[in-house]
């Protein structure tokens, strides 16, 4: 079919893996066959509209190959109007994702034309101490788990007297419900490269590694191509992608370092901190993707601009990831401080299934489950920590009322048992025992027995079986041991989903609120 225009029309379609998974290639090919010039760009992050097609700033989505002819003939059924004016985009404050949807990920021209490399150029004119000072002044905190200030980490590495140091990008934080890292690496890879090169200048490191999870094959391909394309620009700094091998615990920085060295990804005890003795025993900056990707803005536009976003000690913007059973899922970058209700109900449009929301899990598989009546909680590090929850990577996973919280709590223990590196006892054995206790609670049988261990003489359990109160008390005690006794966040944070599920939804475990409160008191 011939399009109505004579000049070829430019059509933009995302080449991000989420768009591909939704069929973007077939849509792009259909536009091409119709005579359009197709540009493959990054994703805007409005996932419910993918494949989203951008024609002269107007968006259409979700588009199937069969819709292409109608769109080219002026059909507006799938039109969402001007993409930039769409409420989902207009309400955001995009820094890290300022280029999302607008540029071709591997185009150096597009990157340069949208302010790329300005930070690196400036950094080259600054003294290393000044770069570190600016990162500190911006208030940038690690966007992974604990929210450790990036500037302090950099300062320690910069002060170390070694000539050889490393920058390691932790791109293995594969928390369920998070995809911002993947979107940076697939959509704006030069931004991460620039951030790492600046970090190299700041601390005196000549080489960087991106440890990337194997579950992101497209990000691996894009990152490798981007490193190749920008080799001369970032020289003498050099970069290499290393691919993980499906071990969740390697998102933990010291496990990651062991894995990079070709060992089992077992956690290292700290101290020494990686900033003092990291990769190959040398001083190493380990930051995650979002942290490093924020750096070019901070240096290019000054730390004040960045620090002006957010509130309290949570500065800058946070790319919130709306995921799970949510109607308008995607990437929403905003200053800290929005309430969960705004994010989930207002922006996310509540559940995709149309059923009532039961729970949201914030901060990945080790984050707490939060019930509907606590949705006014404000989104920042301190408020969440105060509420016994975690922001983690900024992922929000929504569950509708069909979710079985006992099953999800059991899954958290099971996941910890499967993924434990085995180095410390609370995590390695605690998670297995936790799963067993949970099985007994869920089956409603209490403890049937010593047959569980088959060692009636060797432990101090009662032979008559254990009541539900005792089981819950035991689980609570076990969770405390894991929380305070584990070497890293895998064992240490598993109690968050488990205990929050038990506390807020005891009926799913066949228990009552009084029983749970009594047992955990």
């Amino acid at each position, binding site marked *: 079919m011939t399009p109505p225009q004579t000049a070829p029309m430019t059509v933009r379609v995302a080449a991000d893996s989420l768009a591909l*998974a939704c069929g973007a290639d077939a849509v792009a090919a259909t536009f091409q066959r119709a005579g359009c010039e197709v540009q493959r760009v990054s994703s805007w992050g409005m996932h419910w509209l993918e494949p989203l097609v951008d024609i002269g700033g107007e968006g259409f989505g979700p588009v199937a190959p069969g819709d292409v002819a109608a769109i080219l003939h002026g059909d507006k059924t799938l039109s969402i109007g001007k993409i930039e004016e769409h409420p989902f985009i207009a309400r955001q404050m995009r820094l890290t994702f300022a280029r999302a949807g607008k540029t071709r990920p591997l185009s150096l021209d597009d990157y340069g034309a949208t302010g790329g490399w300005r930070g690196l150029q400036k950094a080259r004119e600054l003294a290393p101490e000044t770069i570190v000072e600016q990162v500190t002044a911006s208030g940038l905190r690690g966007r992974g788990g604990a929210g450790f200030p990036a500037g302090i980490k950099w300062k320690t590495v910069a002060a170390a007297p070694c000539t050889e140091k490393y920058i390691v990008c932790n791109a293995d934080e*594969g928390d369920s*419900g998070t995809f911002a890292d993947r979107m940076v690496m697939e959509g704006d890879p030069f931004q991460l490269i620039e951030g790492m090169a600046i970090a190299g200048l700041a601390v005196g490191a000549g080489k960087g590694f991106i440890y990337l999870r*194997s579950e992101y094959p497209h990000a691996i391909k894009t990152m490798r191509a981007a490193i190749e394309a920008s080799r001369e620009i970032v020289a003498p700094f050099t970069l290499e992608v290393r691919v993980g*091998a499906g071990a969740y615990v390697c998102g933990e920085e010291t496990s990651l370092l062991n894995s990079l060295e070709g060992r089992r990804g077992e956690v290292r005890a700290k101290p020494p901190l990686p900033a003092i003795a990291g990769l190959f025993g040398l001083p190493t900056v380990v930051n995650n993707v979002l942290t490093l990707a924020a750096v070019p803005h901070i240096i290019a536009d000054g730390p004040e601009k960045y620090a002006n976003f957010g509130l309290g000690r949570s500065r800058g913007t946070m790319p919130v990831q709306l*995921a*799970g059973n949510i109607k308008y899922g995607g990437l929403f970058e905003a200053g800290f401080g929005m309430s969960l209700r705004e994010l989930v109900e207002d922006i996310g449009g509540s559940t995709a299934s149309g059923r009532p929301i039961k729970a949201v899990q914030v901060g990945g598989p080790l984050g707490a489950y939060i019930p509907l009546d606590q949705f006014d909680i404000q989104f920042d590090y301190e408020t969440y920590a105060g509420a016994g929850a975690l922001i983690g990577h900024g992922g929000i996973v929504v569950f509708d009322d069909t979710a079985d919280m006992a099953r999800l709590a059991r899954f958290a223990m099971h996941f910890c048992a499967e993924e434990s590196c085995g180095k410390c006892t609370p995590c390695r054995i605690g998670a297995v025992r936790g799963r067993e206790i949970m099985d007994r609670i869920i089956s409603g049988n209490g403890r049937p027995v010593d047959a569980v261990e088959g060692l009636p003489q060797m432990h101090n359990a009662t032979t008559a079986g254990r009541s539900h109160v005792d089981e819950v008390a035991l689980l609570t005690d076990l969770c405390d041991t894991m929380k305070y006794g584990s070497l890293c966040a895998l064992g240490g944070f598993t109690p968050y989903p488990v205990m929050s599920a038990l506390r807020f939804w005891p009926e799913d475990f066949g228990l009552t609120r009084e029983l749970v409160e009594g047992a955990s008191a």
Partner: protein
Amino acid sequence: MNEFSSHAACVAALVERHGARQDALLPLLHDLQAEVGFISEEAIRALAAALNLGRAEVQGVVSFYHDFRTQPESRPVIKLCRAEACQARGVEGLIAALPDDFTQRVALDSVYCLGLCSVGPNALVGGAVQAHLDAEKLQQLAGVKS
């Protein structure tokens, strides 16, 4: 199979490419598996010798990571995401509804998150990502049903 006469010969060629340092072990294992489909006993011995490591040390690394297979897999492999976000979108129900013979014909590996958490359930099939899975699409991907 492949152009190499043995797994040890393949290891030798890959060590040539990656270098004989321990930190090359993961890249070596990835390439080896891509080349021959799994990490054999013979390959582990060859790797240990080439990198000057103990056999148990290499074995320990291979067994630690979920990605590495120690047996050949002849069935098509579907890596299905079973993490929380896909659970919230019904992946467990999807698995429960699969026909009994499905796992005899297809290797259904569990992965924990492909980063497509707002459009699940998702899977990785032969390097291609697939979103919005339902029972029918899953069977089509598996080639069980056309």
